[in-house]
């Protein structure tokens, strides 16, 4: 099926530039009647840690499995370092994967698991021993070399799986939900450790995760996927601060959406008429929209200020009643019901508030945000 494009993709073996080390070109995958991946175009840079982020069923795992070669592409092609991999079987790809639940061979020792890939290549025995030892050293698992995977903890198994997928020095490392089998407490430490090892080895890496925090902690760039399509691709900051679509804004972190119509336009700001707010909303960026256009405004909870007194210097403010307060240690999360009935979420750092200024449950409060806190989204 991958031949259908037929634009001579075998001949294009030119060396890849730094920005297109991995090229995913018009890749689609159909399972029966379902398009798991619709049409994906992505370039991943050399030595980049790239995350595919999305909820289950968005096509991210299918895309990863196509990169590994476990699924054939329905159309499109996959190029790695100038070499077309589209029709190459998994056992001939210079790509290794760390599986979701590690898929360590239960009947082999840690050592034999790591050595397995090198044995398939016919590497000389001495070299296998040295490289296995080096790989286990890198993940600090040398003292467990003779154990079986069943005798290791989840974190130790993950290290072995990482060593096994790095020992062949792949051009591309794939991580499938690397943290999902770990307890929450050790996840964050492991994330940082994993990034350290990957950077030390200097390997290009594509990971799949449903956990936006994990993607933001680990990845240089993130592609948010939904419904078989890439919704947005960028650095964690770009994706969070400037979400391209309503889906991305809602998926990465939480946010408040307001539906509105542009009623006034100035060079540096637009005014938005929102049914749920008593005053027009002032928005300082989002230039390019035209008068009368229907748009969605997104305001992050941490950019909304909840005060007992009327705020002095905020562009946008309105009144409401606190209907719920959650104390989360570093910050407080307020649910405030506006006079229109809409509930707005606001989060404030808990240290910055003096007790007498802290709004309590059922207090009448002012909620406010500045003009540059708003991101305008097309649907």
């Amino acid at each position: 099926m991958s031949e259908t494009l037929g634009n001579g993709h075998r001949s294009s073996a030119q060396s890849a530039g730094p920005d297109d080390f991995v090229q995913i070109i018009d890749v689609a995958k159909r399972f029966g009647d379902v398009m798991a991946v619709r049409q994906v175009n992505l370039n991943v840079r050399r030595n980049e840690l790239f995350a595919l982020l999305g909820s289950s069923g968005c096509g991210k795992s299918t895309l990863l499995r196509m990169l590994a070669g476990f699924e054939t592409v329905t159309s499109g092609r996959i190029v790695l370092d100038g070499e077309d991999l589209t029709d190459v079987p998994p056992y001939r790809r210079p790509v290794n994967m760390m599986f979701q639940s590690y898929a360590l061979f239960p009947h082999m020792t840690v050592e034999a698991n790591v050595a397995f890939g090198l044995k398939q290549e016919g590497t000389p025995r001495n070299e296998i021993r040295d490289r296995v030892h080096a790989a286990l050293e890198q993940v600090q698992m040398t003292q467990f070399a003779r154990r079986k995977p069943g005798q290791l903890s989840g974190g130790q198994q993950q290290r072995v799986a990482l060593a096994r997928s790095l020992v062949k020095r792949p051009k591309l490392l794939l991580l499938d939900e690397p943290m999902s089998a770990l307890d929450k407490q050790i996840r964050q430490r492991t994330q940082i450790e994993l990034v350290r090892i990957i950077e030390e080895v200097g390997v290009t890496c594509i990971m799949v995760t449903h956990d936006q925090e994990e993607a933001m902690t680990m990845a240089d760039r993130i592609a948010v996927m939904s419904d078989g399509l890439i919704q947005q691709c960028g650095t964690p900051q770009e994706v969070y601060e400037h979400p391209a679509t309503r889906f991305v804004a809602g998926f990465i972190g939480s946010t408040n959406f307001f539906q509105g119509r542009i009623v006034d336009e100035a060079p540096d700001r637009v005014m938005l008429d929102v049914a749920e707010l008593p005053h027009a909303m002032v928005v300082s960026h989002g230039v390019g929209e035209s008068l009368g256009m229907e748009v969605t405004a997104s305001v992050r909870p941490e950019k909304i200020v909840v005060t007992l007194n009327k705020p002095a210097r905020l562009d946008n403010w309105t009144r409401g009643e606190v209907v719920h307060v959650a104390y989360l240690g570093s910050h407080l999360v307020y649910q405030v019901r506006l006079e229109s009935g809409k509930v707005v979420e606001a989060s404030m750092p808990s240290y910055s508030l003096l007790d007498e200024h802290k709004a309590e449950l059922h207090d009448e409060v002012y909620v406010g945000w500045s003009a540059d806190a708003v991101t305008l989204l097309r649907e």
Partner: protein
Amino acid sequence: MARLHSRLSARQRVLAILPPYVWLVLISLVPFLLVVKISFSEMEFGIPPYTPLAEFEEGVLRLTLSLRGYMMLLSDSLYVATYLNSLKMAAITTVCCILIGYPLAYCIARSNPRTRNFLLFAVVLPFWTSLLLRVYAWMGILRNDGLLNNVLMALGIIDSPLEIYRTDLAVYIGLVYAYLPFFILPLYAHLVKLDERLLEAAYDLGARPWRAFLSVTLPLSRNGVIAGAMLVFIPTVGEYVIPELLGGANTLMIGRIMWTEFFNNTDWPMAAAVTCVMVLLLLVPLALFQYSGVRELEERR
């Protein structure tokens, strides 16, 4: 397993284990001990047709252990040859079951769930009719004027009928046919549990499909193969019906000897001795099987 252990108190554990134990002792161990007892007695005309082991007469307890049966087993080379032939036939049957059954079990385990249930049903289906009927059917197929020869001759592949019926080949066909499901089912149970990601991991690390099979699937299904092989090997050694109905006069199998001693010669002690030696022979592979099972459990811990 460990969690189950800790949840049950010692008394509950005894209660759970006791019924099957009592059952096994009553149904298996007691009859076997009776057979052992008979094997050490003398043949006699009467009911029962053997002498008692212990007699109490005028304050004297007389224990008589006759070794006649065992001596005859050792001295008559026919018995030794029959044992060896039974083991050989059981071994060949087991190997054939492995060669035919492994690919079948593998394909069933790898097929999609709906086809899988249908295929499993097809494996179990023969059990719905009695073994005797099915062996008679094979007689009808294999006879010189049977279905197989008629079809082959009608197609012009052969000119004269193949002599299969009443040969060892017919016995092998019958044995493999009858015992194949006993090999497929336990192996299937192992293969279907096998995590497909392990195979993907092997491909990912550069193993071609055949290498991945040899280094991942095969070792991980080893215990299924052993379990299935035991279920074929052990009953095949003592099989009576199939060699009797399909085999020739010179198909030597221990089951037929037992039958002859028991019914034709009414020599119960001899038949019992033949049985006891057969059980001893079978204890060796059983012990090996047990050993491999225990070792696997220990490895998991």
